[in-house]
């Protein structure tokens, strides 16, 4: 039981963060508006959660301009993908054990 708890990652302990990671796991990248729409989050909310994930190097941020509009792309890093998998495995085990 101790091991399972060990693998639960604090960085993912919010549904928006889990959501961001799950979208980035199956897509090469996602931009800010796509994430906002999929997760039903507000601008500020999403920005703070992406920042938190960026801080621990689980996602990468690429800023660019499309025409004159700024466009922000988010990409999951190798580390982020690895940690996310561990986290999900731990969640699944936790549910099965109960």
């Amino acid at each position, binding site marked *: 039981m101790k091991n399972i708890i060990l693998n639960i990652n604090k960085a993912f302990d919010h*549904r928006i963060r889990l*959501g961001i990671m*799950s*979208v980035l796991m199956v*897509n090469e990248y*996602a931009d800010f508006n796509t994430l906002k729409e*999929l997760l039903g989050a507000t601008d500020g909310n999403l920005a703070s959660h992406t920042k938190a994930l960026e801080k621990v190097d689980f996602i990468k941020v690429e800023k660019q301009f499309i025409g004159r509009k700024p466009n922000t792309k988010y990409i999951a890093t190798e580390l982020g993908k690895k940690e996310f998998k561990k986290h999900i495995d731990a*969640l699944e085990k*936790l*549910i099965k054990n109960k």
Partner: protein
Amino acid sequence: MSSENYLKDISEIKTLMNKSSRFISLSGLSGILAGFYALIGATFAYWFYTLDGNEYIVIESEIFNFLILDILIVGILSVGTAIFLTTKKAKKNDEKIWDSLTRRLLTSFIVPLLAGGIYILIILNQQKYGQTGALMLLFYGLALLNASKYTLGDVKYLGYTQIILGLLCAVFPSYGFWFWVIGFGFMHIIYGASMYYKYDRK
């Protein structure tokens, strides 16, 4: 957090992964109808062909023009039905019909299909007619396989089936017509029906 919350998390993760990477509003019914159009088109083609009495189809003959028209009508009807029914289903599912996901789906489908189409036109121009049927099935199968990454998994198996039929057709070119009937007619109906029962009926 209780395990119920974790369970909810996991199911939400799964939906998000599917929703963001796959376009799931593809209509099974349009597959069935495309198959029927193909069968009707094939019946007309066969009827005219036997009526004509010649063993070979000559380019620039009336029957050749009729066959081209026949194929075009079947194609336009199938694509039109697919667009109409899929848009309707997407609206019902509250999914977007034109976003980066559907663009990816369409490019991955159209690029191999277009490459194949141009290649077929080139070899027709060089008067190599024998493999046309096989090539159409083959490239259509490859296009489906390529597009299946972004939509319902069943499309992949339809792609494999068309590829196998295309290769068989290349070995037995004189049965090309019948491979077409199986590939574009019956297989569309079978896969369309299986998708309809699996996803559309709720």
